[in-house]
């Protein structure tokens, strides 16, 4: 039951195109219905070996000893992999963007920080043999106190989950233990509000649950290369991660994928490719490493849980004068993508509304649980639940129909947003109006007449006269840098010209070299000098500030 309301924004579109806008069948559909679409596991190899991991039964424990002698003698076992076999056994996913510190090993050597963390990997002739050998690896653990709740984890004296971030909080900009948003002065606005509405919201961890579990098959390819068939959502992302962990030039890696049985964000983490390739390197044979469903659900990274506190100051007529957020993202034991999800979330606050005073402190918190990662709606789904459940409470507090409240506060073209950029291309008012009409909800004449196109801007488009800032959560010992300010910032802020279909004759635009390059590739031109960001705290480890997406 779908209708296209072409009357909206009709003058902004040319609806007479040849192929765009047509309900063309999917290019891949014949393969899907005949069962011939080639997913990563649909490649057969002679002599395929199977990898399965030995996993921590503890939330948090020191590893005293790993004894693989019995496992090595088990039938079908070809090799047992340990952390020391991984050429560079520490990574953080976004290091490819120079974002954050390496914090997570492929196979842990010293301690485990969540139940299910891998400490060794069996490479065997059959999956059944690999499973049997997993049980034969003897790991001696010394259990450590653990912490599972985000607010417990940020209390002084909480067990340290990941030593690289000793306060269990990701460090933003080398400056604060959280990401701030400061726009206007919420406290001042609260003092003159007619209503204060407060709420606490909790999202649950959610599994992406693609029908195909995550996995990869790697095999020695001709001429000293490795081919890797993978379910990854980012082919070069996984290739770059594997190249880094295996200290191997990207030119020796040949990744094949592109046809994936669902992802929803759960196939970005690149856990499988490096281990499968390592297996192939050390055995000289094709190796498959894939999660079974149980692993997919409990050691595969979920959409992390988020906890949000929202406080609104509201005028009698329903206008929201101020909104304050405190957010905790449960990152689990390592960073993966949570730190970035927060940036995306903070850029999204306070939701699709024009509110003159906005404040947020958002923490990326480490706990002793499975690391979280991306999922459909990355950084947004959780806070949108909080905002919109909260809006319902605000509507009740001021006695307004919930749709009227949204339209009243909705952002419009030309409004200033809390991240200090002007809103454009808005359409929230219209969506609300269409749904009200379909659902038979009566709107006031003012709400019916509202539009995203002309009601905004003016006073609504101006920055606040004053913004209250603070140094809460300032950290020392980190030296933050800022990509933007150290060469490149100016260009980064320039508007970009987009290629348009009516623009055929124009010479193709060639932006500057991409910021991310595979680690082993030699730069095509002299890179800009790297800002001095070495952290004095962590020796060789390098810290990039939050926005320190440094060029190499």
């Amino acid at each position: 039951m779908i209708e296209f309301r072409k009357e909206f924004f009709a003058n902004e579109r040319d609806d007479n195109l040849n192929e765009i806008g047509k309900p063309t069948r999917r290019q891949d559909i014949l393969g899907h219905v005949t069962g011939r679409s080639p997913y990563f596991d649909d490649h057969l190899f002679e002599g395929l070996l199977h990898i399965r991991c030995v996993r921590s039964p503890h939330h948090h424990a020191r590893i005293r000893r790993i004894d693989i002698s019995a496992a090595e003698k088990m039938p079908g076992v070809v090799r047992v992999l340990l952390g020391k076999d991984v050429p560079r056994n520490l990574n953080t996913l976004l290091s490819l963007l120079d974002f954050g510190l390496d914090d997570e090993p492929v196979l842990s050597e010293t301690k485990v920080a969540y139940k299910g963390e891998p400490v060794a990997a069996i490479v065997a002739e059959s999956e059944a043999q690999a499973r049997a050998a997993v049980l034969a690896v003897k790991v001696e653990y010394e259990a450590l106190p653990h912490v599972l709740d985000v607010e417990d984890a940020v209390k002084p004296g909480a067990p340290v989950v990941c030593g690289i971030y000793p306060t269990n909080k990701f460090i933003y900009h080398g400056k604060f233990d959280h990401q701030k948003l400061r726009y206007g002065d919420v406290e001042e606005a609260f003092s003159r509000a007619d209503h204060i509405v407060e709420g606490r919201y909790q999202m649950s961890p959610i599994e992406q649950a693609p029908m195909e579990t995550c996995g990869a098959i790697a095999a020695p390819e001709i001429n000293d290369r490795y081919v890797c068939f993978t379910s990854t959502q980012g082919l070069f992302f996984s290739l770059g991660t594997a190249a880094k962990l295996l200290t191997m030039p990207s030119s020796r890696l040949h990744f094949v994928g592109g046809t994936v049985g669902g992802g929803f964000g759960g196939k970005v983490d690149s856990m499988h490719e490096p281990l499968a390739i390592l297996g192939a390197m050390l055995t000289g044979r094709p190796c498959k490493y894939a999660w079974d469903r149980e692993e997919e659900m409990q050691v595969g990274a979920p959409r992390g849980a988020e906890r949000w506190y929202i406080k609104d100051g509201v005028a009698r007529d329903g206008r929201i004068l101020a909104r304050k957020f405190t957010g905790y993202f449960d990152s689990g034991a390592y960073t993966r993508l949570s730190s970035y999800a927060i940036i995306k979330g903070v850029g999204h606050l306070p939701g699709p509304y024009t509110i003159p005073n906005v404040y947020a402190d958002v923490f990326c918190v480490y706990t002793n649980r499975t690391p979280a990662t991306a999922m459909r709606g990355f950084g947004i789904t959780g806070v949108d639940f909080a905002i919109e459940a909260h809006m319902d409470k605000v509507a009740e507090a001021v006695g307004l129909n919930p749709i009227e409240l949204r339209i009243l506060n909705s952002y419009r073209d030309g409004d200033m947003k809390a991240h200090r950029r002007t809103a454009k291309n808005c359409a929230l008012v219209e969506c609300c109006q269409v749904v009200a009409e379909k659902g038979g909800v009566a709107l006031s004449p003012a709400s019916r007449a509202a539009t995203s196109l002309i009601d905004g801007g003016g006073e609504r488009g101006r920055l606040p006269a004053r913004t209250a800032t603070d140094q809460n959560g300032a950290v020392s010992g980190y030296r933050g840098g800022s990509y933007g300010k150290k060469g490149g910032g100016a260009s980064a802020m320039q508007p970009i010209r987009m290629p348009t279909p009516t623009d055929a004759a124009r010479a193709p635009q060639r932006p500057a070299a991409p910021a991310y390059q595979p680690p082993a590739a030699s730069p095509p031109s002299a890179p800009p000098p790297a800002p001095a960001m070495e952290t004095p705290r962590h020796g060789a480890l390098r810290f990039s500030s939050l926005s320190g997406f440094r060029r190499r």
Partner: protein
Amino acid sequence: MAKKPVTFTLNGSDRAAFAEEGLNLLEFLRRGIGDLSPKYGCGQGACGACTVIIDGETHLACLTMADAVHGRKVETASGLANGKVHPLQEAFMEYFAAQCGYCTPGMLMSAKVLLDRNPSPTRADVIEAISGNLCRCTGYEPIIDAILATANMRARA
């Protein structure tokens, strides 16, 4: 591990191969025979991605021991198109009843048995018939529509 010869019919052709003791039919079909259309989704009997038809009934290949098909007729999605695509396949294409496509082969097997037994199913019949096949992408609606459309098309023909 002991190996047993298994002789059976796959999509109308005689097949024979050795199966290791305890090997499930899914792995046997995929790696032993080379029919990659049944998919691994869980190995627990809970998702239906490995659904195949054995002697006219849907079974979960992951929970079937390979040698259990000895002397029996097995059908998989790769055999559904016989020279030209099956009406169900045509309807799945037309109704956009697949996104990632991973559940599609199993879904088609369940749909085929439904229509073979009940040429004019109700929506509730279709829902019951596909209840053992999970889909994470489509929200099921287009799949239900495609199966009902196939039945309607056949009724008209």
